[in-house]
């Protein structure tokens, strides 16, 4: 834009300035010539008159002293005529040179026909006639001179008008040009600014869209990465390989979109033949539930490393979740490969299912408030004597609450476990899942973890099985109606 302005305005201003200066220069030159011409014209008239006066004086008085002005005028006259001619030719005023020629001619005539006879004989009898002729010639000279002066004055006025008009024209031109350029510049600037604004708006929109897209993509990728990471961490956490213990696990997310839910299971070797197990369910679904689930399960493992007692472990985790404002249910404990015991505690969680070779599956005791709801909850550790081939089945509520009839759900689970045992399957958890759900869509997440003592160690089996029976029966609850427990209420 500034370039356009320069390209348009600078030549106009330079051109206009040049024109004005030329007109002014011409005008000054003409003015000098005019002034000089007028002076010369006036001087010539004066010379002519001096000549005439001198001759007349000489004629009357006959004193040669009267002839001094005449002589001086006569001497200077031709040079002045030539100077005036030069000025007039410079000024080029039509008819002016002719007037000068006429005046010069008149002067010549006057000198020849008037001055010469009178100077020759001041008292000539024709003096009177000569005087009259002289007067006529002088009048003619005076007329010529006056006309020339008028022409010069007219020329001066014309020149002034021309100068004025030139200045006016140049001013107008410059004004118009500048206005035009300014208008053009304004229009262009307006267009430019509108274009700039549009471009800027378009750029901002594009940026905002790009940013929004990036945010969306980032958010999506982040969520997906978190989901995948959690899912992978969940799915890939390896079950321990311990002599005499056999594990299986299954996890069914609620839907494909929310692959990660709040359910978890863990089995971690603690050493000395003990394997920690935990399984639970954090309220909700999706990433938030998954994150809380991850915290809860880690808190549980951490607590288990500090405390060997499952009830104490749950108590610690309850405190942690309560301060975080998260609710969860869990069952946690350990399988002891040395003592052939399952030791566990539950917090608001469905009962573990115990499978003993040759016996009906039995749901064990449960109870204890869910984690993270109330402060200072007390949980109860329960011990179950196992035998080789004994399996503890842990599951989340989705496995028994899918029809919202929990008793029916328990019956189905027990049946599924029995079938799986009868079929002597290798992956018990997967088999139970299939028995319960088949190919059905699952409303809630479901996690199943089984911990079993390897069958076939005859000496131990004999030893342990004798020991086990009583403990198991006393700790287990059969499937069926639950006795009313109205009197337990005063707990607080």
């Amino acid at each position, binding site marked *: 834009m500034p370039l356009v302005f320069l390209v348009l305005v600078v030549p106009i201003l330079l051109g206009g300035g040049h024109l004005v200066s030329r007109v002014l220069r011409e005008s000054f030159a003409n003015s000098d010539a005019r002034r000089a011409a007028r002076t010369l014209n006036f001087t010539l008239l004066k010379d002519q008159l001096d000549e005439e006066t001198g001759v007349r004086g000489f004629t009357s008085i006959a004193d040669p002293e009267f002839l001094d002005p005449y002589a001086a005028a006569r001497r200077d006259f031709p040079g002045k005529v030539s100077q005036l001619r030069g000025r007039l030719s410079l000024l080029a005023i039509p008819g002016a040179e002719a007037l000068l020629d006429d005046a010069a001619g008149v002067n010549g005539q006057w000198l020849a026909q008037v001055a010469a006879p009178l100077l020759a004989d001041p008292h000539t009898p024709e003096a009177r006639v000569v005087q009259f002729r002289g007067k006529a010639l002088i009048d003619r000279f005076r007329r010529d001179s006056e006309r020339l002066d008028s022409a010069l004055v007219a020329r001066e006025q014309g020149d002034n008008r021309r100068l004025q008009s030139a200045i006016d024209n140049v001013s107008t031109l410059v004004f118009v040009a500048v206005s035009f350029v300014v208008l053009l510049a304004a229009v262009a600037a307006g267009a430019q600014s509108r274009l700039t604004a549009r471009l800027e708006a378009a750029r901002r929109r594009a940026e905002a869209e790009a940013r929004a897209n990036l945010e969306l993509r980032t958010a999506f990728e982040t969520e997906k990465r978190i989901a995948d990471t959690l899912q992978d961490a969940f799915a890939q956490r390896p079950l321990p390989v311990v002599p005499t213990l056999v594990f299986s696990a299954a996890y069914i997310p609620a839907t494909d979109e929310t692959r990660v839910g709040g359910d978890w299971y863990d089995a971690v070797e603690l050493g000395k033949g003990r394997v920690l197990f935990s399984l639970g*369910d954090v*309220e909700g679904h999706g990433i938030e539930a998954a994150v809380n689930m991850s915290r809860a399960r880690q808190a549980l493992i951490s607590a288990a490393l500090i405390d060997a007692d499952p009830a104490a472990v749950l108590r610690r985790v309850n405190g942690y979740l309560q301060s975080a404002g998260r*609710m969860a*249910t869990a069952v946690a404990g350990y399988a002891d490969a040395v003592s052939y015991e399952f030791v566990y505690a*539950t*917090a*608001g*969680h*469905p*009962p573990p299912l115990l499978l003993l070779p040759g016996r009906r599956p039995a749901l064990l005791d*449960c*109870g*204890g*408030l*869910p984690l993270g*709801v*109330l402060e200072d909850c007390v949980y109860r550790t329960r011990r179950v004597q196992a035998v080789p081939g004994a399996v503890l089945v842990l599951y989340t*509520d989705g496995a028994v*609450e899918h029809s*919202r*009839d*929990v*008793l*029916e759900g*328990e019956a189905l689970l027990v049946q599924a476990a029995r079938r799986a045992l009868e079929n002597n399957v290798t992956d018990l958890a997967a088999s139970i899942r299939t028995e319960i759900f088949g190919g059905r869509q699952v409303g809630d997440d479901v996690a199943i973890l089984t911990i079993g003592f390897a069958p076939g160690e005859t000496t131990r089996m004999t030893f342990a099985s004798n020991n086990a029976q009583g403990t198991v029966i006393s700790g287990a609850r059969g499937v069926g*109606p*639950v006795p*009313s*427990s*109205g*009197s*337990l*209420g*005063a*707990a*607080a």
Partner: protein
Amino acid sequence: MSDATTLTVVKMDGELDIGRRAEIRHALAVEGNPSGVLVDFGDVTYADSSAISELLRFRNDLNRRGLPVALLIKSPQFKRLLEYAGVNEAFAVFDERGAALTYLGNAAS
């Protein structure tokens, strides 16, 4: 403090799940200073974990206020669910209204 003649009854029925959480919370918001609260869940057949956590928080609130609560349960499925959650350890649970009222009457006096 308590007015021996007034007893607040909270009654709900059907299946209590997360979709009814606000309703449950509203129903369990007992105001004033009654002699006791009877939570009549006799017609409730199911409660999910969110409903149970509301119930437990409610119990905690009334405990702090020193108000006796009786929980009336009839559906065996529901009773079993409360057993999972240890609610039967936290509440006085009854399967018969008369017994529940007697308990509240004794607690108030």
